[in-house]
């Protein structure tokens, strides 16, 4: 599941595979703007059935946290 989530994030950010890892922080990725962030949360839910509650979704700061909330680590 972890790999799937990372692949989905990379796809939405339109960055090459391998760019995003568990240690990636949102502020380090230029493409990870607020719009991309909403799309990631939306696609996680629609495509992978992973629902991160609104307030947690807004406060996410990086991949590790995202994976934790998604129950993938």
């Amino acid at each position: 599941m972890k790999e799937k989530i990372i692949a989905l994030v990379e796809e939405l950010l339109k960055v090459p595979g391998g760019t995003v890892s568990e240690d990636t922080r949102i502020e380090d990725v230029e493409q990870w703007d607020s719009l991309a962030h909403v799309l990631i949360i939306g696609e996680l839910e629609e495509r992978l059935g992973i629902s991160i509650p609104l307030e947690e979704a807004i406060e996410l700061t990086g991949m590790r946290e995202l994976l934790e909330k998604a129950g993938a680590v």
Partner: protein
Amino acid sequence: MKIALLSNVNMNPVIRLLGEEAEVYQGEGYGNELGALLNPASSYHAFDPEITFLVMDLMELLGHELDASEAGKRVEAWFSDFEGGLGTDCIYYVSDAWLWGPELSVVQDPMRRRILEGAWLQRLRYCMGNHANVRVFPYAELIGRLGEERAFSLKMWYMGRILLSREAQKLLHESIMEYVLRESETPRKVLLLDLDNTLWGGLAGENDHEPVKLSEEHTGLAYKNLQRVILQMQRQGVLLGIVSKNNEADAERILASHPHMTLSPECFAARRINWKPKHENIRELARELNLGLDSFVFFDDNPAERSLVRETLPQVAVPEFPDKPEDLAPAMAEIYRRYFAKPVLTEEDLGKTAQYAAIAKRREFKREAGSFEEYLQGLQITLERVEPGEHLDRLTQLVNKTNQFNLTALRYTRSELKRMLEEETYRFYLYRSGDRFGDNGIVAALILSLERGTPRVEEFVMSCRVMGRWIERAVLDEVERDMKAAGYERLRGIYLPTGRNMPVEGLYKELGYAVAEELPDGGIAYELEIAKAPERVYYVERG
């Protein structure tokens, strides 16, 4: 083909998808669709799209006003602004309505929703009657296909004013592209039909033993419904032709006297019922009707005939034939949409458009000079400066996550900003804005650096929700006034291109600044002699 998608909700995800396939207007946020249309100097007009899609959320447009008469006024106000901003050489697709909002499910009157949607549709229809280049975009059908549960996402709405789910966004993107493709093709004129197992079930030549299937029930009804669709197409100007391998007398008997034939013999402009190869018949028909082969669509159940026509007459469109009779009528409707219903302007339409263009021209003076400004005035925009230290989170977010209206895209972390707030060398300008529909929140930030001589605008960002409202003019006016009061004569503004901040490329120039220095990577430093700042027009009530 250049296209634009304007909306009162955040359609940037769809614009992103469209951008992968088409040349699409990169917008100034959302909620400024009327401003973009009405302002002759807007980046929308500079982009000059050939097709503009307006996909409007009715609930937002009504400002959650569910009282029918009040809602009617808002719909009228929107359309009258919209009509004031229409050009004559662009085609506009305006969405029909799907009213959706959390409170709607507890409205007791079960007809309220339809009535409110009806108010929108009625006004849209009236508008289409007056403007041949305004058409309806079937948004409701798209939502209906998915159902509200799947089409809307409250979470994405809360996070970023994105109303549609990813699935619905993708569907909307596809649907828009379909319209764009159609606009670039010329419509076909003639539908050529086979008879046996196409207009009816079974074979005409054998109806002594077994009658053809055409009736009010079972498979017969499927064929009858197909004919109903074709009849409607014929009434809307599609020419019909028959190309069938049959004994003419057998076929004519059914055509003329079968009680369930919905299409009468007069419906057909031309027919070839014989045993000759079909491609030869089609060539003859083209000569007879004096039309190019690219005007024809050929509908036949026999795959061998279809492939013969495809190979010999590649200009003729040959759609697939459905496997099951129950799919016939919908397949024909799809053929209509795909090949015939192309909204190309007719001579008549053009005449009408020219007529309205004349009326529009008479109004032009008013439009250029006034109606955008009237619109801005009507918005009752408010602007209130707030204390940055009290809104550090929002400030950090604005500075780091704004892409379009962002002059330099310099990013600062929360702690950097916190430290800068305490330093004498920086001045912060942070604003909350609202309009007659409500509060838009804290939407604009400007950071001024006072180190070294001339004060410099390091950072100037504004949320896309309030772009195109001339708020930036009010903000810079205030900064310039302050600097003048502090004894400075000049103010410096920086533009650094990021690939996404094109909407503000010309901002400083437009506001009276002159180029002072060219910076590396395409950046430009502008300067203004504050005493010579131009008088700027804006409509903002200071809070």
